[in-house]
């Protein structure tokens, strides 16, 4: 693949700004994705802090009941569709071609189109606050009948549908691009059992997206028709309210794994490097990735244990949900085994990985509790669930994303981030996170429903809420430290060479940042750790 083909680029595409606007380079697109997603993350994080401010004490009146529901809906929607999913696409974009020794993604222009669709979708969703009667306010799950024109008049919900369509199209095109790239563009020697585990994760991410995104696109299209054209797909006499829930969660639950698998892939890259050991059980992790992806499509109705499904379905969905826990546990054990007898190098990327393991374990176990459907009768739609999914999505995925951000920052920018600030970020975030979300388990079991804008109970109940709010403020502080670190280091961090970490995979063979064509030559790949092999060979030849 080392053939160099030059294409003539018109000069207006090389300007400092136009160069980015017209780029079809996977690395630039990747960075655009990552930066844009972080901006959306800050915006929806701000909304979360506002919600927590409102809930810090009983009977607060910081936001109104209606704005609370809008904040809630856009926070959830944006975190999922405009932050986690696209930022993972960003890392995938940046890293997959480099990791498999390719020059770019299979369809560079489609790739650019994916990014711009995503940006457009994001702008539509955020600007819906300015629509008449405000943004959508029926939660990120948009359950019918609440989201129909009868109970959610106004254009907010329609804009939400439009935004979802745009981001879904973006993700779908991106996913197809990933699949084609991974299947066809691996450098010689890069067999399936040698591709980095992050690439395995992106493969699973992409396949899942292709399998389930059409369902949500179909669902929101039907909803749009019901709202605008007067069809009655979800009317009681026809599909009924529960049809929406099936369609939504058939997409929605795999979506959770779409969000977590690539972050797990990041862990499988980072931990071995900072433990100075190979990953323990490469095959087990690769196959458990596929196992999770498959099983995740069989569990959707565990979000529906209280809608009155027949007993045999309750049992079935409990058992399938349990079955996802097994491959997940395998991953945790494999990471622990990778740490075992290593020489752990405590830099920020490793810290965030350890944070991931600590917190995701918690989220996984509360997931088992929720899958036990009698327990879910109490915990469902309560703050217990809010705590659970923040443990997996924030404690898991977002900690993984920060690990990845610090780990690949030197590759993307050619500069090292500030370690002191990064460690500060980690501890503020770890402490703030637990303060914010641990008490929410208790709140849920004490009877606090999710999605309420106010409550009137005092005592321990109010204390837990206060602690939770203070924790969220601490997290906001942590984010500021992160932003400061990124901004400062991008401009003036110390310069680094190709491989500051002593890493294993091909992206570290390219320069930092890599040249537009990535590699002059790609070394022949004879294991899953080609860059380490190269180091070994050099050392042997040298001695």
């Amino acid at each position, binding site marked *: 693949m080392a053939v160099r083909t030059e294409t003539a680029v018109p000069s207006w595409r090389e300007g400092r700004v136009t160069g980015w606007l017209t780029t079809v380079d996977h690395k630039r697109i990747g960075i655009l994705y990552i930066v844009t997603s972080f901006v959306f993350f800050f915006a929806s994080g701000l909304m979360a802090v506002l919600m927590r401010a409102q809930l810090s004490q009983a009977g607060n009146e910081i936001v109104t*009941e*209606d704005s609370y529901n809008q904040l809630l809906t856009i926070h959830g929607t944006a975190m999922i569709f405009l932050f986690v999913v696209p930022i993972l696409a960003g890392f995938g974009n940046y890293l997959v071609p480099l990791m498999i020794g390719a020059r770019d993604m299979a369809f560079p222009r489609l790739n650019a189109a994916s990014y711009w669709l995503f940006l457009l979708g994001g702008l539509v969703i955020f600007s819906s606050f300015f629509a008449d*009667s405000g943004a959508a306010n029926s939660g990120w799950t948009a*359950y019918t*009948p*609440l989201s129909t024109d009868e*109970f959610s008049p106004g254009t907010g919900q329609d804009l939400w549908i439009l935004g979802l369509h745009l981001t879904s199209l973006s993700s779908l095109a991106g996913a197809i691009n990933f699949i084609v790239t991974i299947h066809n563009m691996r450098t010689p020697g890069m067999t399936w059992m040698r591709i980095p585990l992050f690439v395995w994760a992106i493969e699973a991410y992409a396949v899942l997206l292709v399998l389930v995104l059409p369902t949500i696109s179909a669902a929101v299209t039907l909803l749009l028709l019901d709202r605008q054209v007067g069809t009655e797909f979800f009317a009681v*006499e026809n599909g*009924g*309210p*529960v049809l929406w829930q099936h369609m939504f969660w058939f997409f929605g639950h795999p979506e959770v794994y779409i969000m977590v698998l690539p972050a797990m892939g990041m862990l499988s890259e980072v931990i071995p490097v900072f*433990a*100075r*050991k*190979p*990953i*323990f059980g*490469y095959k*087990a992790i690769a196959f458990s990735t596929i196992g999770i992806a498959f099983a995740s499509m069989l569990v959707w109705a565990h979000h529906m244990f*209280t809608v*009155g499904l027949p*007993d045999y379905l309750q*049992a079935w969905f*409990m058992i399938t949900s*349990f*079955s996802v826990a*097994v491959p997940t546990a*395998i991953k945790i*054990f*494999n990471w*622990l085994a990778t740490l*075992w*007898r*290593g*020489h*752990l190098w*405590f830099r920020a990327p490793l810290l965030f990985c350890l944070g991931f393991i*600590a917190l995701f*374990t918690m989220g996984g*176990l509360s997931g*088992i*509790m929720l899958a*036990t459907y*009698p*327990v*879910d*009768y*109490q*915990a*469902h739609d309560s703050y217990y669930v809010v705590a659970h999914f923040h443990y997996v999505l924030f404690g898991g995925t977002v900690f993984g994303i920060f690990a990845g951000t610090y780990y690949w920052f030197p590759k993307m920018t050619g500069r090292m981030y500030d370690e002191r600030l990064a460690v500060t970020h980690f501890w503020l975030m770890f402490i703030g996170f637990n303060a914010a979300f641990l008490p929410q388990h*208790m709140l*849920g*079991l004490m*009877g606090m*429903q999710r999605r*309420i804008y*106010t*409550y009137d109970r005092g005592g*321990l109940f109010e204390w837990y809420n206060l602690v939770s709010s203070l924790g969220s403020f601490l997290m906001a502080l942590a984010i500021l430290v992160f932003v400061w670190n990124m901004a400062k280091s991008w401009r003036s961090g110390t310069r680094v060479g190709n491989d500051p970490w*002593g890493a294993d995979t091909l992206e570290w063979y390219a320069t930092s940042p890599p040249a537009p064509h990535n590699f002059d030559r790609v070394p022949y790949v004879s294991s899953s750790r080609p860059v380490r092999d190269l180091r070994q060979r050099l050392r042997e030849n040298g001695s």
Partner: protein
Amino acid sequence: MGRRTVVVIVAAVAALGLAAVPILLALAAPADLGGLAPAGDGSPSGEAINELYWFVFGICAVVFVLVEATLVLFVLRFRRRPETAAETEGPQIHGNTRLEIIWTIIPAVILVVIAVVVLARSPAVEATDGDRSNELVVRVEGHQFYWRYVYPDGEIALDTLVLPVGRPVRLEITSYDVNHSWWVPDLTGKRDAIAGQVNDLRLTPRREGSFDGGCAELCGILHAVMPTTVEVVSEEEFGDRLGALGGQDESGDSQLALGEATWEASCAKCHGPEGAGDIGPPVARLGTLVDEEALRELVTEGLDNPDVEGYMPPVGRGWPDFQLQALIEYIRSNEALAPPEGDGGGR
């Protein structure tokens, strides 16, 4: 202070912190459980849920402590020592099939055990076991934004449900508008109220008292303030309370009480107790309030004028005529609300 010392201290603090959390929680919550377990022990089915909760919680807690302890231990034990060069690699172990098999099978077996125990306890959780021949059936309707209860002989109660202690109850839960979810945590788990379907929730209240709950499924702007109370009373008192609700369909105190309850539970939440307006516009003294036809149309169809913020949900779907009449009678009797004589009203 060397890096190593820092790491040790930090890790030790983290470990202690982790260990301290459950202990502190247990200490902080002497009276009730402070949220360590669901509240529901007010009925055998709630109790069955709690037993399962503790069973699964126990297993999860052990796994949690083992994993976190291993993590902390490895972090302490395998940190890179200052004397170790950065390039030094650990042993190049790529895996171990036997270990992999073991740690695949152990969680699988644990989960099978949990599943079997849960399924075995399912009849107790659903309260389908035992003698239910004298079951009391109450219809529960979730409305935007109040609960409407209908007793077997058609008596209507709003937001407050009275149940006799010790008698099996079946709640037939449904909705006429969006999804709601009926949840009184002290009694048992929740069940969704969905239009077009009736979900049964069985329970047998086993101690007297007043238990608060609410709506657990996002149902719109006032989802947070859609509370309900279940008063569990003796069989005798239950008879009295139910008797007092009799005669709602003929003029009299009962009718006025139903009208007042309807106003308080439904209209007042948006239009204010005196109809002076809140998230809905002021409606006091409007002719519509006492015009049976107009009011019926309003409460069954809702209202959404494009130039008025918010919309009025169809709060009265499923009401029998006498409930609407009761509301009108109450409004007529309320000085703040009643329109001046001769205005509207059609009488």
